[in-house]
């Protein structure tokens, strides 16, 4: 139960801060929404490509295939913005049997996904606050 509560808190903090921080920089709602959804789609696609298998080696099995970017795949796997809270949740639940991309990122030192989460949530929260501090009304 504490893990469920902690993981929910982590997820909610991230998905609250990101769109609000983006919305602080534009008066157009559609633009803010399109930016967040675009960021999510592009980073997800980029993460998928950068951690994808070499062509013709998929037959070796999902977990066995060699990533197109080699050893760098575990670092490049974190570019997927939508997976930032998921990587933390995998740690909270101690879930190492997730999908291939989760396993690739789990090879990194734990401080990397945690740091990225803190930078994205705390950093974007700070950006939101600073944006309003400089706002002239």
């Amino acid at each position, binding site marked *: 139960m504490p893990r469920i509560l902690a993981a*929910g808190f982590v997820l909610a903090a991230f998905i609250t801060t990101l769109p609000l921080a983006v919305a602080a920089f534009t008066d157009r709602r559609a633009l803010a929404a399109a930016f967040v*959804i675009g960021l*999510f789609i592009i980073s997800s696609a980029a993460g998928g490509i950068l951690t994808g298998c070499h062509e013709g080696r998929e037959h070796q099995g999902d977990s066995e295939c060699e990533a197109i970017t080699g050893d760098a795949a575990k670092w490049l796997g974190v570019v997927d913005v939508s997976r930032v809270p998921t990587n933390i949740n995998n740690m909270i639940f101690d879930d190492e049997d997730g999908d291939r991309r989760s396993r690739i990122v789990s090879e990194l030192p734990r401080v990397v996904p945690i740091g990225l989460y803190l930078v994205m949530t705390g950093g974007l929260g700070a950006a939101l606050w600073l944006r309003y501090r400089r706002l002239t009304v």
Partner: protein
Amino acid sequence: MTQRTGELFDLGYQHYDGPREGRMRARKAVFFDGFRTTLGLGRGAGAKVLPMLLFGAAMAPAIIIALIVSLTNDLIDLPGHPEYYQVVSIVLLIFTAIIAPELLCADRRNGVISLYLVRPLSITDYVAARWLAFFAITLLLVYSGQIVLLAGLILSASDPVDYIRDNW
């Protein structure tokens, strides 16, 4: 030469004599306004469609998983609590991207933020209250889904007490 005549109307304006509740009251007001804005409360039916879809999107995976578990009575290969968060994070991110700008953009575009700030309310209070309002709703959504899922998994387990003990 005709002389213009003016007329005074007593519209009943009076000084405010009630209690002056200060900064915390202003913070609470912005928080609850943010809560209401996010859920589309006090507005037309159109404003409520997206929050309802958001609620449905957060609940659907939990209900589907709970139903499958209760029908198949097989807990081994079905997604559980971590997988629920993984699925729902994608859905919630898209929906919150659409709903969140409503909280901030409209106040700036319509100049309402200037009115907020003539009250004993700092810009930090405003931002914190808006963030907390949206965070509270998001937290409520993700926990509601987990409660539904947990209830489904407990009721489907062969020994509910054991399931609660193992997953506590």
